């Protein structure tokens, strides 16, 4: 990939340069209909993370999933969407209900999720659900006005947007079943977008988008391993380059899809911006301070799919731990902490 120094400002800049080098079009050229764009944005921004903490002082094992975002993007088949000429949208309400019920009834959820390819089938599914006390991640506005991430039983009188993996993960925790009001599935067309080009990634890994099995995120994972194991470079150089490729990978798998650019408005100045609510209704709001504009690859659908997938994987791990008689002290988007022995306070 031929990097342009003008784009090299952060890892995200490198990821943007990589996308353009491959010929992946900007996500702004793939607008979703409002009825889906609203829930996708709401599902992404409303439930980015879920965290819970129990106990006071304990020894613990902290499992931080390596390459979590890249692997999530790979299993969520984000690469196929990026390389596709078109995206197809269809109704997935019934399929999602069936998958949730299947997972809920499974004695080994990990085996069931694998056997039914639940991540590949439902990562880019967006649903409006009435939670009915189901355990999901959500954001709660604190008394100070700031939004705080929560994870637990949620009750609401109206439908809320969530991604498919979040709906599936709720089936891992308890018997409360949410009501799936409607679900949309976004699938890639078989045809690829025109103008795709082969690129060589750091470490000499070649990514050829014309191959039927082309997967950008598998190639990025291989690139990181190749850099880390490059016997021709010193240990210092290997460590430096692996960190660089790691940043590129995270940006390509998640960060760039969530990127927004803030432009300050200046003291006393206001601007009218058009927004979309979680139910797909557009409205105009007057803002002060700054204006946010989407980055070139901004796509809440893809950003939310990746983080929801990591949450689902963490949920599967947590379920396996609790089924084995253990407990979960803390869960994050891509990590889980398991207490192993309590100590004296």
């Amino acid at each position, binding site marked *: *990939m*031929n*990097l*342009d*120094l*003008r784009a*090299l*400002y*952060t*890892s995200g*800049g*490198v990821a943007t340069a990589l996308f353009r080098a491959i010929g992946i079009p900007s996500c702004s050229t793939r607008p979703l209909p409002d009825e889906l764009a609203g829930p996708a944005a709401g599902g992404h921004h409303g439930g980015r993370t879920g965290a819970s903490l129990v106990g006071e002082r304990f020894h613990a094992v902290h499992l931080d999933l390596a390459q979590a975002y890249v692997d999530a993007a790979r299993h969520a088949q984000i690469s196929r969407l990026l390389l596709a000429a078109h995206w197809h949208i269809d109704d997935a309400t019934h399929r999602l209900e069936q998958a949730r019920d299947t997972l809920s009834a499974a004695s080994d959820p990990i085996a069931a999720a694998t056997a039914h390819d639940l991540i590949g089938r439902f990562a880019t599914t967006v649903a409006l659900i009435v939670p009915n006390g189901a355990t999901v991640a959500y954001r709660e506005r604190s008394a100070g006005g700031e939004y705080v991430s929560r994870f637990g039983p949620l009750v609401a009188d109206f439908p809320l947007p969530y991604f498919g993996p979040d709906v599936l993960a709720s089936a891992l925790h308890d018997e409360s079943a949410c009501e799936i009001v409607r679900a949309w599935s976004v699938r890639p067309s078989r045809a690829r977008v025109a103008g795709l080009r082969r690129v*060589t990634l*750091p470490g000499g890994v070649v990514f050829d988008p014309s191959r039927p099995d082309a997967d950008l995120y598998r190639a990025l994972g291989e690139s990181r391993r190749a850099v880390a194991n490059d016997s021709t470079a*010193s240990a*210092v*150089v290997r*460590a*430096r*380059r692996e*960190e*660089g490729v*790691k*940043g590129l990978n995270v940006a390509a798998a998640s960060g760039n899809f969530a990127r927004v*650019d*803030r*432009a*300050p*408005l*200046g*003291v006393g100045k206001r601007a009218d911006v058009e927004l979309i609510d979680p139910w797909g209704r557009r409205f105009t709001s007057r803002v002060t301070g700054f204006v946010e504009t989407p980055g070139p690859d901004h796509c809440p659908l893809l950003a939310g799919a990746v983080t929801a997938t990591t949450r689902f994987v963490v949920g599967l791990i947590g379920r396996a731990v609790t089924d084995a008689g253990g407990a979960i002290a803390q869960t994050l988007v891509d990590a889980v902490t398991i207490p192993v022995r309590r100590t004296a306070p």
Partner: protein
Amino acid sequence: MIADLVRLALRVAYPTAEPAEVPIEAPSSGAPRARRRPDVMLLAVETDEDQELLGACWRRLRFDRLYAEGIVVPDDTDDPSLVEVDHWVVHNLRPGRFARDAVGPYTDRLTPWCEEVFRPAITAAKAPTGRPVGGRSWVMTWDVAAVASRVCRHPGVGGREFYGGWSLGLFDAPNAPGAGTGYPRLRLRQLRDGVVSARWGGTPTNAKGERPRRLPPILDLRHLVAAVAGPALDSLDSACTAFEIRPAGATGGGWLDRVASRVETLDGLQRAVLREIDWWSGR
């Protein structure tokens, strides 16, 4: 106007070669557009570990020929060697009175020092990796944000001047030699969460109503390093360690020596980062 510049931590604007002394001949109008090179603005800004402004120098080229150059001294320096410069600035620097010999002992040192500072920058701007950078300007600094934060903290300036962008007022002197042809301003548009968005600011028109051609992008080393080696390298020392650069030591106790050693370190780091970008690009 100059008093305003002083409060903006800019003490000396010292063009050593006035336009009249360096005849500039533009390529003929029939020359291919790509060969008609516009102005080159090179700027080196240095800060210390506490993000205080150490100093800066700038050089302007037109059609690859030196057009003007100058140094920037922090206004809160306690370096006794700069007393004479300070005295000159306060009492003699007025719009339209940029005297070549006004900075006394620094007269002989300025051009060689700027030459040393800008040699790698000029090389980089032309062909750092065997090809054009893509722009014809180069901001050679570890952290543009650091410079901005220094300005932001300055009493009397604060958020009022920074909000919406900070102008490097050095280029704003309206009556300085060459100013009429349009001195650009460096504007920091955004400074949040460690991310800097900087661009060349509005450029005034000259007496003929002309504006300079489009100015090239701005980069700083901190973000170049983060782009190819991860955001954990958030200090110059850690970046030098990761890129196997040994920081240069100052050869003397003067301000110019300290800044020059800093620049030498950044020069080495910049070359290493450009080589790394070449590696990423498969060259």
